[in-house]
């Protein structure tokens, strides 16, 4: 009963490097989300997906890209890491609107130096 699995848990990147944060869910949820949480702040939506092949921007999409080739996976790509992307990243998933709650992953703590 894994729920939402995020990897890696921690990562240090140098400015300009690229990486992909992985997110997988095993609940057959249609909706998936990426949030970032800066220290002492609430969560801000980066991108979301309502199903395989469909993605859309959230509140803070700049510097990120996503894809959703399967129902289970929703990777987040950072192309040219910047110090402003130092944050904790949470992936979440849910069923269709009005059905059930949201399940959050354990987070990825990213530091860009």
């Amino acid at each position, binding site marked *: 009963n894994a729920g939402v699995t995020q990897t890696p848990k921690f990562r240090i990147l140098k400015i300009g490097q690229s990486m992909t944060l992985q997110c997988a869910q095993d609940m057959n949820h249609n909706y998936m989300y990426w949030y970032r949480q800066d220290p002492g702040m*609430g969560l801000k*939506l980066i991108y979301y997906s309502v199903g395989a092949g469909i993605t859309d921007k959230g509140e803070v999409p700049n510097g990120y890209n996503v894809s959703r080739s399967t129902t289970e996976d929703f990777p987040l790509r950072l192309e040219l890491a910047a110090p402003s992307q130092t944050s904790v990243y949470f992936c979440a998933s*849910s069923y269709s609107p009005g059905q059930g709650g949201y399940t959050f992953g354990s987070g990825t703590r990213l530091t860009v130096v």
Partner: protein
Amino acid sequence: ELKVEQNPLFLSMQEGKNYTIYCNYSTTSDRLYWYRQDPGKSLESLFVLLSNGAVKQEGRLMASLDTKARLSTLHITAAVHDLSATYFCAVVAEGNKLVFGAGTILRVKS
């Protein structure tokens, strides 16, 4: 665009005291969530409120929803140290997206 405001942002309480956290939101929504987050951890779901007048209670925490006022409250009764955490409210926006408040850091002092 849906905005969610919480207050206070920081709350220092004595054990045994009562207090309320407020969550205001700017546009109509059909669901509101309360989450708890411990330092370095993910979010733990506390309550989901679905309709006007909804009230839910779990232990020393009670949440309520007034959709007409666009206001939810999280009431803490007889606080204990174990309740120290950050509490978030989150409102469902168009597209089934969760919009979060900034969070309330609660510290319960013995």
